């Protein structure tokens, strides 16, 4: 396998043409991964550049620091965010993520990266207004780098290694920062026992589902009821896969109102677990194939079953800026999120 190719001229158009001709890239302009740029990226990572950090199916491609750096350069990353990309790449290779299934499924699932801790301010990630959207280099390029890793190293090309029926915009880039400054609770990684200064979480799920509430006048139960309502779509994989997680990304104002009513983070999960429910018979009517634990399988048809088998599967954090819009992010299902320290 060749390590380098020659591009006829030093221009974005020539690089895009050369890459597209080989089936590489995501369709958008790329930054040329010259040896000099890759070395500048690698300067932010300790360890052997060619050490295997994991293998990604279906291509069985090997993640190394060097190949991660190549894709980070292509995505337009600044070198200082490279440890975040590396952390995310390591997370993708964790067996509980089931990246083979993620790439093989017809579902539009994409890995959401949630960046937490000191690195958010140090590297200029956006945790505030419009955090899921465009306009911030760190968010945009780190998410894109992960997608390029999946396209190139994992071989998850649409219609080949990625069987998604419709695809989805989150498959271009899907990275957000946790707004710990405006959160009433400790950082999400610390709530999961990851005590490092910075961490990255990977959750493989759908795009964000908006939950608007402007009439609750601060009442926690009304805000939470709307969140629960958004979690009960029969179109979600969570409706038939008990292990599926929900990520609940509250805006600061909703989080503040909920915390003011003495809800802890775990209380929010428990409330949503109790209120996001359907009759077992309705779920059985819609799903012949159900990945439920025994206690859910044995429930009578009139029993109200939760959209996930355990309240701990409902993960809560704060994202965004001013306004009254939160979101829920359902899971693909047969996957579990991973939170890893950012180490380089």
């Amino acid at each position, binding site marked *: 396998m060749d390590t380098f190719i*020659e591009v006829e001229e030093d221009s974005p158009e020539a690089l895009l043409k050369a890459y597209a001709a080989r089936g590489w890239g995501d369709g958008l302009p790329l930054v040329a991964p010259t040896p000099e740029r890759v070395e500048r990226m690698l300067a932010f990572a300790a360890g052997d550049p060619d050490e295997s950090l994991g293998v990604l199916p279906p291509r069985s491609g090997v993640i190394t620091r060097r190949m991660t750096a190549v894709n980070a350069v292509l995505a337009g990353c600044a070198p200082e965010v490279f440890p975040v990309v590396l952390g995310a790449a390591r997370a993708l290779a964790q067996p509980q993520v089931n990246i083979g299934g993620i790439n093989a499924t017809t579902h539009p699932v994409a890995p959401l990266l949630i960046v937490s801790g000191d690195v958010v301010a140090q590297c200029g990630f956006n945790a505030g207004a419009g955090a899921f959207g465009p306009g911030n280099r760190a968010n945009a390029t780190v998410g894109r780098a992960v997608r390029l890793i999946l396209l190139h190293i994992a071989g998850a090309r649409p219609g080949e290694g990625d069987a998604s029926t419709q695809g989805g915009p989150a498959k271009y880039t899907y990275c957000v920062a946790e707004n710990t400054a405006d959160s009433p609770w400790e950082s999400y990684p610390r709530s999961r026992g990851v005590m490092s200064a910075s961490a990255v979480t990977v959750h493989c799920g759908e795009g964000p589902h908006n939950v608007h509430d402007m009439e609750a006048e601060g009442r926690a139960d009304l805000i939470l009821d709307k969140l629960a309502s958004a979690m009960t779509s029969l179109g979600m994989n969570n409706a038939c896969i008990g292990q599926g997680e929900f990520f609940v990304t509250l805006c600061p104002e909703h989080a503040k109102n909920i915390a003011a009513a003495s809800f802890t983070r775990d209380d929010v999960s428990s409330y949503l677990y109790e209120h996001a429910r359907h009759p077992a018979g309705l779920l059985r009517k819609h799903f012949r194939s159900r990945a439920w634990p025994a206690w859910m399988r044995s429930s009578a048809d009139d029993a109200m079953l939760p959209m996930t088998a355990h309240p701990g599967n409902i993960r809560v954090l704060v994202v965004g800026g001013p306004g009254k819009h939160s979101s829920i992010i359902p899971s693909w299902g047969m996957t579990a999120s991973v939170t890893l320290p950012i180490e380089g």
Partner: protein
Amino acid sequence: MQVYTPEGLIGQAQARRAASPASLAGLRIAVLDNGKPNAALVMTRLAETLAARTGARLSLLTKKGPHGQSANAAIPAAADTIARVHAEADVVITGSAD
């Protein structure tokens, strides 16, 4: 301008299908149910039709979980089930996705 290629090395040999036999006559056909709705029905009918036309026989119909029990389509087949298919069949019909 010299630039890196983006894919890197392949870490382990990918599984590949064995060469197709010249004839199915006398061979044993297994159906490995991938867990998707209707998959077992479609694949079993296919196996029965193939057997009737070629002189093969349907030797095993199994789900892909441990001990041949059902498993979600999104996870790999259990090792003991794969071993049983390997031991009890010459040809396997299975599928992925929907």
